[in-house]
Structure formats: structure tokens, C-alpha cells
């Protein structure tokens, strides 16, 4: 039990430090156009790298994931919000899972 708290404190400390320190330390506006451009693109690159290809292996079946992700992509393309797109991903995957259970 002692161990869990050590683990928990380490996780908390790392999660806090990587966020708060750079955010607090950077006071001046970055002038470099290159650096500003880089920072602008980072979140999109990170989120994409976390999704592709890992999302296709999130459930036990690639077909189930693909169906959910296609529904999500379609909804996002149409401009739907976070919750709608998330529900769409789950709904699409569930539909595929249900269909494949019939076969």
C-alpha cells in the first residue's frame, strides 16, 4: 500500500512539473516566426500521432474500430462538437460489433 502512494506522487509530480514550469517560465512573447509556427502545429501533430494508428487497435477488432472512426471523422468533417463526435465513434463501433455478432 505504501508503494501505491509513492507511485501516485511520482505521477502527480511529473504531470504537474511538465505543465506548470514551462508555462510559468515563459514570460516573453516568442518573436521567432519559426518557433511560433512550430508551437502552433505541435498539438495537432501530437493528437494525430496518438490517434494514428493506435485508435485502430483500441478494441479487439480493426473493423469495429474503423467503423467507429469513420463515423467520427464524418461527424467532425461536418463540424459537430466534441461530445457528438465521441458518441459517434462509440455508436459506429457498437453498430459494427453488433452486426459482426450476427454473422
Amino acid at each position, binding site marked *: 500500500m505504501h508503494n501505491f502512494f*509513492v507511485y501516485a506522487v*511520482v505521477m502527480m509530480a511529473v504531470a504537474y512539473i511538465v*505543465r506548470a514550469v514551462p508555462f510559468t517560465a515563459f*514570460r516573453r512573447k516568442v518573436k521567432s516566426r519559426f518557433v511560433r*509556427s512550430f508551437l502552433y502545429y505541435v498539438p495537432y*501533430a501530437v493528437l494525430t500521432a496518438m490517434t494514428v*494508428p493506435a*485508435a485502430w487497435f483500441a478494441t479487439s477488432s480493426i473493423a469495429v474500430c474503423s467503423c467507429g472512426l469513420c463515423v*467520427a471523422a464524418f461527424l467532425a468533417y461536418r463540424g459537430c462538437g466534441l461530445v457528438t463526435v465521441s458518441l459517434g465513434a462509440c455508436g459506429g*463501433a457498437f453498430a459494427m460489433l453488433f452486426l459482426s455478432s450476427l454473422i
Partner: protein
Amino acid sequence: MEWWDGVKQGIPIACGYFFVSFTFGILGASLGFRWWETVLISMTNLTSAGQVAGVRTIAAGGSIAELALSQLVINLRYSLMGISLSQNTDDDFTGAKRAVLGFGITDEIYAVAVNRPKPVSTRFFLGLMTLPYFGWSLGTLAGALFGGVLPTSVTEVMTLAIYGMFIAIVLPKAKAETGVLVVAGLASAVSCALYFAPVFSRIPVGFAIIICAVLAAVAGAVLFPVPEIGGGGDA
């Protein structure tokens, strides 16, 4: 009012978080964590991918060093987001306020804050992070306590919720801006290469994400630089 404006913009994030952290609660319970342990991790971390990797490492009996290093690498993107966000805050948002509210930087909260047309104030950011924080904590609690009641088919497809959230953030931007489209395409290509090529199979997931992010964002910065300051853009 700035605070209320933030709260309102946090509602969809909070709903998404409740849903996603529900699956984290289920995961924690399935790995043998007690409900309050999983909730404690959510309340003190507020990271999605980091927490998943963390409980997996702990459940597998990993060392403290392994845990710290993997958390550092997976969460390192928040450093970049923190620096990025520091460019879009108002004059009052400094020092101790940043040290406290910096805890609230997550992928989604960052995405909303950085896309705000005017400088982000302390009140707006506090409002923005409030509901997502409760959504994340309460979702974990619900998942840890009641996740076992749901059939596996339901809990299985719910793991896609978090990816749906990512898609909802990236895809509309990629549709609107060629630069983001190219960056996302490159990140996908590099990520797949690292994932599928046997040569790279030993690279831990956290490192792979950083490699993809840096390569794709550098390419984007070179090929599609954001407008100069005062040039009309708000990057």
C-alpha cells in the same frame, strides 16, 4: 463575463471527459486498483494517455524510474502546449497564477484556450478548466464503481471515445488549413512507420509520439509558417 464564458466553453470538454474517464475508471478496476486509488490518480494528474500508461506500469510492477520516465515523455507535449499558451495570455496572467492554473493544461483545454481570438485571462482559464476537472474526476469514480455492471461490448467500444475527441479537434482545423492538414498527414505517416516497422518496434510509445510531433511540427513550420505578428493572423 470572462469566467462564465470559460465555464460555458468547458461544458463539451467536461462531457467528453466524463465519458472518457469512465473508461479509465473501468481500466483501473480491471487492473486491480481500488476505486479511490483510480479517482486519486485522476484528481491529481488530469492526463489521459499518461494515466493509462501509468496504471499499466504500476499494475505490471514497473520501477519508479520507468514510471517517471514514461510519464515525462508522454506528458512532455504539455510543456510545448504550456509554452504555446504562454504566448496568448493577457498581462495579468503571470507568476503564481500560472503556476497554479498550469495544472489545467490538457489537450482539449489547451486547444480551446489557444484558439481564443483574444488573450486568455486568469478568469477565463479557471472557468474553462473547472467543469472538465469535475467531469474527469467524477467520470473516473463512476467508471471505477459501476463499470463492471456494463457488458464488455459496451465498455470495449467506449475506449474509442477519447479518439473521437482527438478527431473532433484536429479534423475541422485540417479541413480549414492546408498547414494543419499536411502536419496531420506527416504525423500519421511517421507514427505508422514507427508503429509497424520492425526496426522501430523497441521505441516506447511516449517517445514515438514526441518524435512524430517534432518532425511534423518542424515540417509545418518550414512549409507553412504562421503569419508575422501584426500581420492579421492570430497564431
